[in-house]
């Protein structure tokens, strides 16, 4: 690494951001505590927000770098190089911009005059040491007492006196009180120092500029560059990055104008690298990454082809690599500072390019330095660290001649450089480092494939560095990625390389795995390669040495052969297991169960398909299938299906063979899954080394990432008779189910069931088995319904209608059943809601099982599902009508009304109504004393309707609709009269209003013409007040009548007044009755509008009556009908 560091590494002083140098003197850190505090406040905590100042503590007798004698004219000055190596350090470390003298002096010091002189003397000595320099001087008085608000009036005078004594500008005199706010004072001092420093650098720049103006462009081009660089650097110190960039850019363009010969190529490139670095760095800091990248592009473009001395081309590539590397670092740093990078423009590309150049460096080194064996004497490289200028050759420093002065020394020098390059530089580690950085960058910027390519290149480098183990590790990881995206061309290249690595490291496992993949269809290798690999694989099986892969270095072969000899001789490992799930192998295998369900009493069949794409016929010794069930895991041998062959496990190229294996499942595994875990193909015969190809069948859904549509595979032409391997779907699990029972369970029931009835389900069991069965029981359970999750709450079961309810699931114990005998059983279901119920009827029994041995019994089961749909038996619609049979929308308290339930039969079966009744609410009562059902014994067919009526009164008016009560029906299916079901229907609610007066009319059903009929009006007063009404009877053409025509009535509270009339009908037919009119004597007495009273009468009173004609020959004065 020696040459690398000397030649191309950038000096650290250049890479850091320049800070103004401020010298501090007069402070004794070792002895004085307060001085130490001041110094620590100055020098510690230099956070980024503080001024860019580098404080340097100077002793009392500090010597500054001596001033060079001033030249009067630059006319004859010929520079010996471009940039002096010590110049930057001088300005950063040695020559302060400001020198600050700290001095302990209080204004009220008794010895003020003496101390003033002391201070002046000290300042004078510093001034003397800096003679000729432009360095600014400043004095800080450290005072014990803090300044008081009023301020010492003498302080200003004393300060003036001090300045005069010291010949100091009063602006450069500061006071630092020791006390609480030291840090604050220090920060303010810093700002003042920075201003002074900037003034200094400003002057320094002007001084350099004045030199530059005298320069001669033809002979002093070096100086032009140097001066511009100096201006740029001083501007940076001044923190004027704009001008710094301008000057550096000018310096760079001047540099490009220089004449470059082999002798100064290195110097020019070194300086160009430095200036370019400065420019890029400033541009990045100014958030101009595009400009920085453009500058770097131009830089690399300008120097890419300036190779310099042809024997030192590796130096050129080293330099280029370094340029890219450093630029990558700068870019990366800028990204950390907030610059945005994108996928196609990020530091990774620069590191990658750096790695490429490092590879070129290595190659040219190998080419140029192969014959260099000795280091020349005397060492031409002595003094390489103390050169005056950047990038010059130590054997001819300061030489400006285009031709080397001494050809022998020149040759020695080149030899020495070549020797160092060959011996001292670890190229591979550099290249791998660069690749490593680049890889992490590519990963960060979402370039997985570029990263993979770099990893392959990295492995390539490991390979050439003879670190075959690492190369193999990296390559095997990459194989997986390229395989998953099916880049077979790339995969093949990597495979060959990896195979070489595996050979050289004698990695048996990897070697076998890689060989199997290399023999496959996907690997695009030549037949010659494949044949060699195939033969090697066979040699491994026979414990012979494999042949080396072509293209391996001869130096490594003997060692590899030793390793293989040892590996072949050892018995360990007796077999190599290769997991084929991640290998695109030459032999593929699939296994499937023949069905998704297997019965426990029958053998389970597994088909195994094996396809070989190996270019040569390949022979296996065994084919096993591993099957896992919850209780066991077994390996089953498979046998060829179809015609027997001599050698069923010998595969020609591109053949598919089908094998079959079977096993008897265990009864304990009933209800669980059986899985094919793996297929094992054994290679190699007894005694030889065995290779086991293990194909995993668990979750092998490789079709997911495939862009081959399975639907389209059927279009693929396959030879007739041959099996299309690709279209075979893997069925790696099967469900083990119990044997099919021969118990015949037949179920009879008359669906649909009627809502609320006990529904009979009849089960008949017939034993068709070969043996008697025992412990037969039926489990009846409800299958959960999707529509109604709480169906079990509305479903009831019982064994007997008169018995108790049985909770779900119900079990019916049957007992034993002999062969060919029959048993019947029934149970009842009641549905309380209308939706279909599915009942699972499971018959379980014990039976002799011949498979398990004598007298061994096993459980068998048979399932049946009963679907019961439920319908309503009838629909009840209740109407309320008035006594006049007018439909009512509302009732009136204490007025009778009729409730009429209409029952419509909906059942497909005829139903018989056994009884009906009303269950009335407390404030509702029957007008009649008892209710006698009018529907009793009625039989209804589907669609028929039955109605009955009952007169009710409601005692209380209410704002809310009044709950009237319920209507109950007792019914049964016709023919099942013993199973009476009682259904209850809630009557509709009714709004009940209040009416103060109620008039009822007692009237015979009909009258006869010219036969008087007696009627009476009964006027009820329901209020607790006295009501005066006017009553009038309107005349009617059809009647003559006797009674009050007009009358004023006084209705007592809560009483009834009866008015009797005698009507004498004149006409026959349905004739209108004389109309009774009522009106209140005092308007508004009952808060009742007159219209309401009229409406009341209209509602309560019949308007017409039937009058019969007189029978002929019958006496006119027959019996007068008298109202009851």
């Amino acid at each position: 690494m020696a040459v690398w560091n000397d030649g191309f590494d950038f000096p650290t002083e250049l890479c850091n951001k320049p800070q103004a140098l401020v010298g501090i003197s007069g402070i004794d850190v070792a002895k004085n505590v307060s001085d130490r505090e001041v110094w620590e406040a100055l020098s510690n905590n230099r956070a980024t927000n503080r001024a860019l100042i580098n404080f340097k503590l100077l002793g009392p007798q500090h010597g500054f770098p001596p001033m060079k004698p001033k030249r009067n004219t630059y006319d004859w000055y010929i520079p010996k190089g471009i940039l002096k190596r010590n110049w930057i350090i001088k300005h950063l470390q040695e020559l302060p911009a400001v020198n600050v003298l700290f001095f302990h002096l209080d204004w009220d010091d008794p010895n003020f005059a003496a101390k003033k002189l002391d201070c002046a003397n000290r300042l004078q000595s510093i001034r003397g040491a800096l003679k000729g320099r432009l360095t600014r001087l400043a004095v800080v008085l450290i005072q014990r007492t803090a300044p008081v608000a009023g301020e010492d009036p003498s302080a200003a005078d004393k300060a003036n006196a001090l300045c005069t004594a010291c010949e100091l500008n009063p602006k450069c005199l500061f006071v630092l009180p020791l006390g609480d706010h030291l840090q604050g004072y220090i920060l303010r001092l810093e700002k003042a120092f920075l201003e002074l420093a900037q003034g200094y650098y400003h002057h320094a720049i002007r001084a350099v500029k004045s030199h530059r103006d005298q320069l001669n462009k033809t002979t002093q081009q070096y100086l032009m560059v140097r001066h511009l660089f100096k201006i740029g650097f001083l501007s940076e110190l001044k923190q004027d990055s704009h001008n710094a960039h301008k000057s550096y850019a000018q310096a760079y363009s001047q540099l490009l104008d220089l004449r470059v010969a082999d002798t100064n190529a290195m110097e020019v490139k070194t300086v160009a690298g430095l200036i370019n670095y400065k420019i890029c760095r400033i541009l990045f800091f100014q958030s101009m990454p595009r400009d920085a990248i453009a500058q770097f592009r131009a830089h690399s473009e300008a120097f890419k082809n300036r190779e310099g001395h042809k024997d030192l081309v590796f130096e050129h590539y080293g330099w280029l690599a370094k340029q890219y590397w450093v630029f990558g670092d700068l870019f990366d740093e800028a990204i950390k500072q907030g610059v945005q990078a994108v996928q196609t423009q990020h530091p990774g590309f620069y590191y990658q390019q750096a790695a490429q150049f490092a590879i070129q460096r290595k190659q040219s080194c190998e080419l140029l330095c192969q014959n260099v064996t000795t280091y020349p004497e005397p060492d031409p490289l002595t003094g390489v660290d103390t050169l005056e200028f950047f990038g010059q050759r130590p054997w001819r420093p300061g030489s400006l001649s285009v031709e080397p002065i001494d050809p022998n020394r020149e040759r020695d020098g080149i030899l020495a450089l070549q020797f160092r390059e060959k011996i001292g530089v670890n190229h591979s580690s550099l290249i791998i480092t660069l690749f490593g950085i680049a890889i992490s960058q590519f990963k960060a910027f979402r370039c997985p494939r570029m990263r993979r390519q770099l990893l392959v290149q990295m492995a390539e480098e490991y390979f050439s560095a003879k670190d075959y183990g690492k190369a193999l590790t990296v390559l095997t990881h990459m194989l997986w990625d390229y395989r998953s995206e099916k880049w077979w061309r790339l995969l093949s290249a990597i495979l060959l390389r990896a195979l070489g690595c595996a050979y050289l490291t004698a990695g048996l496992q990897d070697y076998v795995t890689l060989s199997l993949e290399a023999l496959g269809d996907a690997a695009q290798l030549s037949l010659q390669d494949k044949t060699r690999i195939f033969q090697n694989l066979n040699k491994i099986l026979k414990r012979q040495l494999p042949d080396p892969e072509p293209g391996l270095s001869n130096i490594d072969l003997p060692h590899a052969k030793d390793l293989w000899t040892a590996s072949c001789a050892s018995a360990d490992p007796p077999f190599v297991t290769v997991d084929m799930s991640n290998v695109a192998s030459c032999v593929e295998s699939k296994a499937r169960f023949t069905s998704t369900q297997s019965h426990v009493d029958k053998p389970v069949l597994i088909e195994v398909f094996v396809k070989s794409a190996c270019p040569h016929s390949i022979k296996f010794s065994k084919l096993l299938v591993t099957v896992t069930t919850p209780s066991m895991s077994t390996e089953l041998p498979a046998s060829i299906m179809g015609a027997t062959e001599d050698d069923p496990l010998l595969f020609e190229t591109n053949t598919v063979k089908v094998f079959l294996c079977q096993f008897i499942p265990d009864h304990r595994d009933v209800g669980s899954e059986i899985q094919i875990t793996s297929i094992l193909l054994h290679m190699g015969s007894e005694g030889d080394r065995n290779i086991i190809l293990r194909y995993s069948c668990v979750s092998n859904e490789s079709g997911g990432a495939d862009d081959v549509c399975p639907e389209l595979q059927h279009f693929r032409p396959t030879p007739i008779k041959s099996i299309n391997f690709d279209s075979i779907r893997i069925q790696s699990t099967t469900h083990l189910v119990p044997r099919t029972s021969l118990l015949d369970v037949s179920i009879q029931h008359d669906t649909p069931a009627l809502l609320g009835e006990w529904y009979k389900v009849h089960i008949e069991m017939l034993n068709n088995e070969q043996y008697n069965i025992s412990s037969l029981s039926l489990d009846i359970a409800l299958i959960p319904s999707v529509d109604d999750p709480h169906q079990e709450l509305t479903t009831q079961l019982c064994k007997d209608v008169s018995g108790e309810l049985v909770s779900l699931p119900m079990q019916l114990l049957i007992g034993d059943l002999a062969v060919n005998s029959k048993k019947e059983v029934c149970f009842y279901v009641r549905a309380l809601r209308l939706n279909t119920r599915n009942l699972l009827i499971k018959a379980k029994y014990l039976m002799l099982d011949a498979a398990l041995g004598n007298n061994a019994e096993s459980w068998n089961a048979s399932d049946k599902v009963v679907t019961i749909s439920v319908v309503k038996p009838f629909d009840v619609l209740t109407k309320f009508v008035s006594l006049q049979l007018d439909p009512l929308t509302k009732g009136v308290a204490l007025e009778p009304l009729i409730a009429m339930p209409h029952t419509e039969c909906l059942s497909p079966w005829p139903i018989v109504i056994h009884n009906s009744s009303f269950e009335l609410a407390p404030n509702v009562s029957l007008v009649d004393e008892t209710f006698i059902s009018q529907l009793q014994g009625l039989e209804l067919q589907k669609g028929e309707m039955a109605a009955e009526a009952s007169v009710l009164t409601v005692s209380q008016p209410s704002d809310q609709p009044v709950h009237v009560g319920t209507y109950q029906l007792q019914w049964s299916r016709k023919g099942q009269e013993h199973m009476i079901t009682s259904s209850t229907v809630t009557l509709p609610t009714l709004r009940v209003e209040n009416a103060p007066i109620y008039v009822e009319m007692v009237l015979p059903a009909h009258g006869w013409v010219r036969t008087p009929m007696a009627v009476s009006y009964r006027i009820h007063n329901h209020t607790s007040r006295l009501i005066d009404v006017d009553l009038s009877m309107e005349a009617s053409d059809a009647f003559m009548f006797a009674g009050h025509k007009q009358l004023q009535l006084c209705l007592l509270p809560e009483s009834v007044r009866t008015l009797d009339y005698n009507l004498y009908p004149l006409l026959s037919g349905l004739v209108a009755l004389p109309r009774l009119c009522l009106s209140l004597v005092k308007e508004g007495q009952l808060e009742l509008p007159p219209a309401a009273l009229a409406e009341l009468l209209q509602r309560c009173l019949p308007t017409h009556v039937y009058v019969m004609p007189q029978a002929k020959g019958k006496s006119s004065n027959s019996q007068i009908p008298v109202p009851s």
Partner: protein
Amino acid sequence: MAVCIAVIGKENSPKYVACLHSENELQFHYKVHTALDVVEEKLSLAGKSNCDVRELYLGLLHSTEEHKIFGYVTNTKIKFIVIVEAANTTLRDNEVRTMFRRLHAAYTDVVCNPFYIPGDHIVSKKFENVVKSIMSGNS
């Protein structure tokens, strides 16, 4: 004009790769493969911004010292990659678009062939001829 032309399947596996100089075939495979990074990125961005879905041309994907790589994606996520030498500065964007359009048309013809199973490697003389003519610049 072009030095390498590639057709990449929906799941990024190569369906067809042709190079003008077959000795560098492996390098071009790597170049095409790495260019897919940029294609993927562009596609995922396009999916988010929901911009003009009819624009199939992806433009310049990546340029190195020697080559420029252009990309094009069909609506069925078949990718076309064309690699042009960086030295060829006379090439205009329009000409690259024309190359892709011709390639797309040729690919459509391949898919329309009833004996071609989508997803397979492209083996077609006609397609080959189109690719060759694009590479030689006879448009």
